[in-house]
């Protein structure tokens, strides 16, 4: 059977996100995994298989090339566990793998857990060291994650005559949203002036245009809708799940098709998810969106690529207030990556959990009244991988 309409999410959990010196990778993994299983109202023994999303296990000192950490962290007996990795879509990929597992009819209760321990090393020893030391030694050498997205910011500002203040408003908005998220990395309001005055990271982007480097884990438990209907205390249904991979890590920037104004991968993944979910007017049909705001420019182009507005209209959409809490299409009420941080493997699972909580009415102070349908979106590498999930109340 397909995923869409047939696979449900029956339990969610997330650890606090932040620089968590007091907890190791396995601690975070265990907290999220056991939390989601408990939330589903089942015993750990009832869960038949697990999928682990971790992008950079070596940052936590692990061997890393397996899903064995799940067995180690929660004593997950002799059961099938695999690790998946797909750049910054790693967390979503764990959920997607678990959903495929259910859809295949192989298992009935499957755990998807995303965990990343990035701050057992310094922030610059984390992903930055990876992009500097790993990958191709000449082609595009000198790139960093902020440096790659800064190329979009420069081009976007040039093409659409948008000022740096507009980008900064994404950060102000999402930090404001995070005040209502007790698990966010940053829970302090910031001003436009602070964002603009922050030291530059990759021009035009400054530190407050960038997601911090963060530890965290999140997990969900999946089951067939038919099982959920009978056993789950509450659940959300996956209505559509698109994944699109368009290119390699940096090669996309060499291609003449790349316009530096958005991401083809997101448009393709959203196209798949919307087709499956029957979404033809995303802004009208979606009640709440979590999208990948690793940098301020990313949220602006994502809102365009997700069809919440036309291309080139993302800045106007933001400035209209439509994507702010209380607006007609609130984006990143959790605080997004800007304020929650981005433990790579955890982020997609956190977003799915957030949207499930929204459409099941459990999002606390962040709750959008009457929310029934929501979307979670992650973007990987320099925009070459995108995962889009549409979830709704039963």
């Amino acid at each position: 059977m397909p995923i869409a309409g047939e696979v449900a999410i029956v339990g969610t959990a997330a650890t606090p996100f932040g620089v968590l010196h007091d907890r190791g990778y396995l601690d975070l993994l265990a907290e999220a995994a056991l939390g989601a299983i408990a939330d589903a109202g089942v015993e750990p023994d009832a869960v038949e298989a697990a999928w682990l999303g971790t992008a950079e296990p070596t940052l936590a000192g692990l061997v890393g090339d397996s899903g064995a950490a799940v067995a180690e962290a929660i004593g997950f007996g002799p059961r099938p566990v695999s690790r998946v990795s797909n750049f910054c879509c790693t967390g979503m990929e764990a959920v997607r793998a678990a959903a495929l597992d259910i859809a295949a009819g192989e298992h009935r209760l499957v755990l998807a857990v995303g965990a990343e321990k990035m701050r057992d090393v310094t922030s610059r020893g984390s992903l930055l060291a990876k992009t500097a030391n790993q990958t191709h030694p000449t082609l595009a050498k000198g790139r960093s994650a902020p440096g790659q997205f800064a190329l979009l910011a420069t081009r976007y500002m040039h093409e659409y005559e948008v000022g740096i203040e507009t980008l900064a408003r994404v950060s102000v908005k999402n930090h404001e949203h995070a005040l209502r998220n007790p698990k966010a990395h940053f829970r302090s309001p910031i001003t436009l002036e602070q964002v603009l005055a922050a030291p530059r990271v990759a021009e035009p982007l400054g530190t407050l245009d960038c997601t911090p480097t963060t530890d965290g884990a999140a997990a969900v438990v999946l089951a067939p809708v038919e099982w959920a209907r009978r056993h789950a205390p509450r659940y959300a249904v996956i209505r559509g799940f698109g994944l699109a991979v368009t290119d390699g890590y940096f090669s996309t920037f060499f291609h003449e098709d790349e316009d530096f104004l958005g991401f083809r991968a997101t448009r393709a993944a959203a196209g798949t998810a919307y087709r499956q979910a029957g979404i033809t007017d995303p802004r009208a049909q979606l009640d709440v969106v979590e999208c990948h705001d690793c940098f301020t420019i990313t949220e602006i182009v994502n809102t365009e690529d997700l069809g919440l507005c036309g291309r080139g209209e993302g800045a106007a959409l933001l400035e209209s207030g439509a994507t702010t809490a209380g607006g007609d299409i609130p984006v990143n009420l959790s605080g997004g990556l800007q304020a929650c941080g981005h433990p790579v493997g955890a982020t997609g699972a956190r977003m799915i959990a957030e949207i499930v909580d929204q459409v099941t009415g459990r999002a606390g102070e962040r709750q959008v009244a009457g929310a029934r349908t929501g979307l979670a979106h992650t973007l990987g590498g320099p925009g070459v991988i995108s995962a889009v999930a549409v979830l709704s109340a039963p």
Partner: protein
Amino acid sequence: VTPPPDTDAGILDGELHLPFRRIITGTGRGACADPDEDAVTLGASAALALLERHPDARPAALVLATVTPPYAEGGSVQPLAEILGVQDRVFAVELTSTPRDGLAALRIGGSLAASSSPVLVVAAHRGSGGDAEAGDGAVALLVSGAGGVAGLSAGPARAEEARERWRLPGDASLREGDASAVSGRMEKGVRAVLEQAAGGAGIVALAGLRVAGRVERALGGPGDAVAAHAGALGAAHPLARVLVGLDREQTVIATANGLVEAVGTRPMDGATEVASRARAVLDAGVEADAPARAWAPPEGFAPYQSLSRAWRERGAEFRLEAARCPGCGRVLYPPPAGACPSCAHPGPRAVEHLGRTGKVITETRDHVYPGGAVTGMAVVEMDGGGRFYGQVIPSETVAVGDRVRLVPRVLHCGGGVIQYFWKVSRCP
């Protein structure tokens, strides 16, 4: 110096390349390279400009002279041959002992050209930041067995034991002989060569710059404009003097550590243009206060490297080899392993070189990439199609819409090998 009747060796053309930045030194101005330049990239810059004027020239030999070879042992001429695209058909040799070797390279080039012509002679120096009088720069000459813009003749030569500046294995810096004694010995050696020579006009002495300048004045030479405007250019110095004086009959003498050598040139049609171009390079540049900082990657910066990968991809890396898709006609760089990313045409594709000029479509200045300083990165739409995405040279910034070119530079020394690659620089 009278050219021997049985040789028609000549200089076809030459290029003097100097970094634009000039530092004020005790003796004048010193050309000062960026921290990511070395003798190979400076030599390549001179030779690429020269070969651009002679697209049909297929050098049969490449002679590199430098006393600042990037590889102390193991060869520095190979990356130069790769960048210039002559790696698969050239006799390549390098001379690295004294600044005299620049002139020796020309002499050897003249001899080789008699049997296989033309010969590309390159001399380069990366000396700034060390010796206060030293500058950075390079000269490239195309030497022919059948005339050119200047006739070329080898004069007398000596090889006496007369130490001026030397280094024993393990020495961090040069040892130097007593200056007045050096001056006396040098003058004697040069006078002996002049006596052996049958005549000639214009006298140049080189090496141990200040001393050589005194000797030159004592012998009535024209004065060293290269030293005054670019600093001491090591092995490139004698060839820079050859170039700037190419429009008159001259004897250029190089002397270093008792090696004394004379080469004569005689202007023919076109000599004035070549000499004027070199003099213009000498006079150009902008004055700056401080030499470029040394390139110092932070601790922990250890880029992945594989020598097999470097060998396999040397065409794309050194020569910007791209591919043209027969389906959509796009120039694809780097050349894809499989189908065209735009139209999915499977190929095969003909090799086509990425152009080296283009226009910036987006850029950033990255403050966190651990390259030792703020790293400019730019995406460039190349003339003729295809794109380049890479670093901007450290002394410049670029903006969207700027016309730029790709220049050879040192990217890093990951894995203990020097990783040469192209960087983006504004068009002059």
